[in-house]
């Protein structure tokens, strides 16, 4: 979908462990985003990046960090996962004027 690959697609881990999710794009978009999707909340922006090494916080950034060392890759890290971070995580790219944001197919993360 729109040249976006998220990995892994599913992950189960334990509270307190570090977790890294990867988003890879082949579209050379400047902007990349991480969202989480939870019932009753829709999609909420965690962090976004507007270029290599340029990132900013979104609405629900606490407990998450991101890195972007290459245009094509945007990593989301949970330093010490908690059960409240159980969610479906979506990566998106794009959002330039007259262009929509395009989403990947998500990573389902369960923290036990």
């Amino acid at each position, binding site marked *: *979908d729109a040249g976006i690959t998220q990995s892994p697609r599913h992950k189960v881990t334990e509270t307190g462990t570090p977790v890294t999710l990867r988003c890879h794009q082949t579209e050379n978009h400047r902007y990349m*985003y991480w969202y989480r999707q939870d019932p009753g909340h*829709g999609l*909420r*922006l965690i962090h976004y990046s*507007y270029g290599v090494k340029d990132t900013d916080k979104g609405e629900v950034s606490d407990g998450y960090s991101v890195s972007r060392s290459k245009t094509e890759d945007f990593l989301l890290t949970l330093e010490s996962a908690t059960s409240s971070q159980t969610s479906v995580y979506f990566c998106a790219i794009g959002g330039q*004027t007259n262009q*929509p*944001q395009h989403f990947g*197919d998500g990573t389902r993360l369960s923290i036990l």
Partner: protein
Amino acid sequence: QQQVKQSPQSLIVQKGGISIINCAYENTAFDYFPWYQQFPGKGPALLIAIRPDVSEKKEGRFTISFNKSAKQFSLHIMDSQPGDSATYFCAASPISNFGNEKLTFGTGTRLTIIP
């Protein structure tokens, strides 16, 4: 706080009927209003979007109606089909020099079309 309020949470419509989903926003800086469609196991995909300089935009069976003074917008699906069964999200964003990078989403509507 929820800046974009979406209703209803779920909707069941007979095949051939009209499906209507409503959204209301508070932030007057919002200047771009897309609707996304999501099927199970997939990411949201843009369905249709509108800017506030027009009151209505139609693409096939899908129409966005926009009321700037009331700060409301809605999605109408005409001649609803079983293949339209999905979750629909409205969203809103201000328009920056870059574009629409700060989307705020509604909470979603699960639409089911029954034969």
